[in-house]
């Protein structure tokens, strides 16, 4: 069967799509914000964590803020000093890199924004320590607490969404190939009708 050869070619291509080496450039970065702390991890699509990877933390205009390195669990953290949009880039070399954008809205409201910082320091007053002693929270502390709680709840959802997107991609690939063969069947049908 001459078709066999093509089928083999196609299966090879489909199979290649799953090989980790092909997706190796698809290193991924996931990050969440808790208050003023950005924490996250670098991983490969299979789920394996990337250790000792340098993660560049930059502002959205690519101005580098800091570089951090992932620990043995592939995790890293960073304390944001400004309420700005951050771009996190994990570069493992050879053109393999992952990027994640942290929107300024996700960061705590208590942080100074970049614009205010560029003007002569308008320092935000630190929360009064007396509040703690009174066992009542200032509004700012409450907001921080709520933000912390919400991002903790959202984290698993975001992770789920990422894996879901991976899955959808594979389904679409298979669906597309199936569609092409469906069209083939249709052409066969039309050709058969015509020959009668």
């Amino acid at each position, binding site marked *: 069967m*001459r*078709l066999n*050869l*093509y*089928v083999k*070619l*196609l299966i090879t*291509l*489909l199979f*290649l*799509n799953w090989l980790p080496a*092909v997706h*190796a*450039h698809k290193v991924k970065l996931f990050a969440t914000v808790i208050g003023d702390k950005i924490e996250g991890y670098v991983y490969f699509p299979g789920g394996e964590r990337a250790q000792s990877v340098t993660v560049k933390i930059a502002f959205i205009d690519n101005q580098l803020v800091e570089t951090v390195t992932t620990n043995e669990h592939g995790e890293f953290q960073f304390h944001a000093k400004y309420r700005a949009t951050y771009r996190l880039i994990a570069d493992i070399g*050879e*053109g*393999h890199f992952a990027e994640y954008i942290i929107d300024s809205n996700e960061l705590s409201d208590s942080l100074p924004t970049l614009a205010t910082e560029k003007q002569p320091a308008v320092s935000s007053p630190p929360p009064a320590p007396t509040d703690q002693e009174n066992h009542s929270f200032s509004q700012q502390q409450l907001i921080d607490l709520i933000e912390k709680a919400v991002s903790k709840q959202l984290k698993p959802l975001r992770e789920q969404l990422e894996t879901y997107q991976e899955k959808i*991609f594979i389904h*679409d*690939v298979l*669906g*597309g*190939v199936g*569609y*092409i*063969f469906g*069209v*083939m069947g249709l*052409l*066969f049908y039309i*050709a058969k009708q015509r*020959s009668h």
Partner: protein
Amino acid sequence: MHIADGVLSAPVLITGITLSIAGVGYGLQRLDYERIPQVAVLSSAFFVASLIHLPIGFSNIHLVLNGLLGLILGWAAFPALAIALFLQAILFGFGGMSSLGVNVFNMALPAIICFYLCHHAARRAQHESLQFFYGFLAGSLAIVFSTCLIALSLFLSGEGFIRVIQLIFLAHIPVMVVEGIITGFIVVFLQQVRPELLATPVLSCD
């Protein structure tokens, strides 16, 4: 390789759609009944190949395979590429829906040019290195012509031609090499295993 929506001007889009419909129609009309599965499998191969990104140095590229499709399918490359590109557009957003016609034409015309340029020579070549050479030629020339057509489409839509062609051409040099090598190997392999595939094209264009 895939032009997105909102980049090209209306006359270019309309020309692309018209030419593509004509090409697909002609390809379908002359399509052999027994060759339909072959077209489908190569169409699927093209569809999947664009999704596999190979890391090369500073960037990563994906295979196009339009040279191979042209070499084996001849005019049937038009419908094969049209279906695959349509699916890539709706499923993955590779190229826009309105620019589908232009994209089909930009990839299918080079495929057919390569068919006329290399098919005869590739199937006649006795020596392996010659077979590889013609396969390489078809694979890389298809990319060269495609990039020229893309640059032309952008130029006709008002972009600076020289700048655009420089950018696209430079970005595709690794693709040309890889594509040529892969097409070359496939041609050598086919000649050894199934020479009749190359000996009997989908359309007898001679």
